[in-house]
């Protein structure tokens, strides 16, 4: 971690990015979700079990932005799933490293899932391990690993983390 204390504005901007990302998913604006990423991005949801053992497999593993868009297409056009609503709770946003046009940060997430005839349930809890790149369009994710503490997924993982 860099010794220099990051400017307050940058931390505030970073927190806003996490909030915007959460809201995008909570409001089911999936088509806008890829906009948080650069073209040559890496996005992966993986269990802590795989992460800690250095095993590469992901629950979701997108190796570029096209794969993010493909996932949205699949969810919208081909997947059958029980209707649900999600709430993302993001906390502990922390800037770990800052270079000229790159930020390394992390944050905790908790996702509550509500199905239409059952109580809300904690669907997933974990950490975002992120690298952001500064572009002409502001900060974009060049890499996001969503490392979930869940040993196993409850039923299915439908909406990206």
């Amino acid at each position, binding site marked *: 971690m860099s010794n220099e204390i990051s400017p307050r504005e940058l931390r505030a901007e970073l927190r806003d990015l996490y909030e915007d990302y959460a809201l995008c998913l909570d409001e089911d604006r999936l088509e806008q979700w890829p906009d948080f990423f650069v073209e040559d991005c890496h996005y992966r949801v993986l269990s802590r079990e*795989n992460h800690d053992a250095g095993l*590469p*497999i992901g629950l*979701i593993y997108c190796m570029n932005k096209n794969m993010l868009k493909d996932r949205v297409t699949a969810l919208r056009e*081909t997947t*059958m799933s029980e209707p649900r609503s999600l709430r993302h709770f993001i906390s502990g946003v922390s800037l770990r490293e800052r270079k000229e046009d790159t930020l390394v940060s992390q944050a905790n997430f908790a996702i509550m899932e509500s199905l239409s005839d059952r109580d809300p349930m904690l669907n997933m809890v974990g950490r975002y391990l992120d690298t952001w790149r500064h572009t002409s369009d502001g900060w974009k994710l060049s890499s996001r690993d969503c490392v979930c503490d869940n*040993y196993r*997924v409850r039923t299915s*993982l*439908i909406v990206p983390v």
Partner: protein
Amino acid sequence: MDTPTTCSNVGRQNPVESPVHIERRWPADGYTRIPYWVYTDAAVFQKEMDVFFAGNTWNYLGLDCEVPEVGCYKRNWIGTRPVIMVRTENGEIAVLENRCAHRGAQICWQNTGKVNDFTCPYHQWNYDLNGNLQGLPFKRGVMGKGGMPRDFDPKQHGIRKLRSVNRGGTIWATFSDEAPTFEEYCGPEVLAEIDQVFPGKKLTLLGYTRQLIPSNWKMYIENLKDPYHATLLHTFYITFGLWRADSKSENYPIPNSGHSVMISHNEGKKVTEATPEMQRFRTDLEMLDRETVTPKKEFNGGRVGGAWVFPAAAVGIQANTLKTRHVIPRSPTEHELVFTYYGYEDDDEDMTRRRLKQANLLGPAGFVSMDDSEMLTQCQIGATGYPHEAGIIEMGGRDTERTDYMVSEVLIRGFYRYYIEAMGF
């Protein structure tokens, strides 16, 4: 498998004195009907654990690449029984009950690890990698008082070691002394499927996905024996030609067993006379990342599929993704599903990327398998409410003969033909 397993001929480890008695009658139509109480009844579930998982069956433990060095272990379950596989000093893999001989505590409480020997966390009884009891604290007492009785024989109180076998890097075990050899148990067709994807090449572990599905374990088995649904529910498969009703295919229920082989071919996107009935076929749908749905031909010109090894494991390939599936029943209405992904040591970077990328099709968030866990949840809710009703398994006829076409429920019929006899219904 030569003789069906029943409660009366299982080994010493089974509750032979008090076999589970079930007051249930199978519908008169036999294996073309599945009474919904098989998905909910606690006594049925317990009998399945005794007769199948603890009986004369061979059960999947894992891959030898998961325990590469002496002392490396992996935890798993056979039915509801916790077990461990561990690499011993002679380089072989031993399978042990994960249960201290003293009071029953799990001696391993991590999924994987590396040890010199096993020490129970409770009273520190210590075992070697083969499960032999090496020592226990205060065996001779404290200050001349207490201790274990003089005639306590450590040799009689080791951790039970199961019969196990390594087939091309897959590890299997049985609780039974009477079970046939693994090769006899599988038969030539299932063995050929295992050997195809485990040809003896060194394996590379790519990782796991795990999910807890709120349905009876048999519902998952049936789902994998049901190519009928795959051609309708999984639009993704159909559209991209990865699994279609009009592909060259084969369903083979292995007689007198719960095993089966199901084969299809990746034929790519196409429109044929069967297409209009596949209502979810989307001619307009394209993937931006074509590689996700474009496997490299790997075995016999795009042949995909694999085998179910009764009771709870499947091996096979889907696109270029190699994986095993393992079902761990947790209760009558819950099962855990574990995919273990792997590659071969001689895979190049291109192939490894495909194996990882095409794994997006499978697992809890898989383009084609997230539908399954969603649907099984619905089946369990429906079946639980109507235990006296029954499902109809007549697609493709009422027999259990192998088919050379896809839209058939013959594998489910074959499974229940065996199940009814083995469970004594």
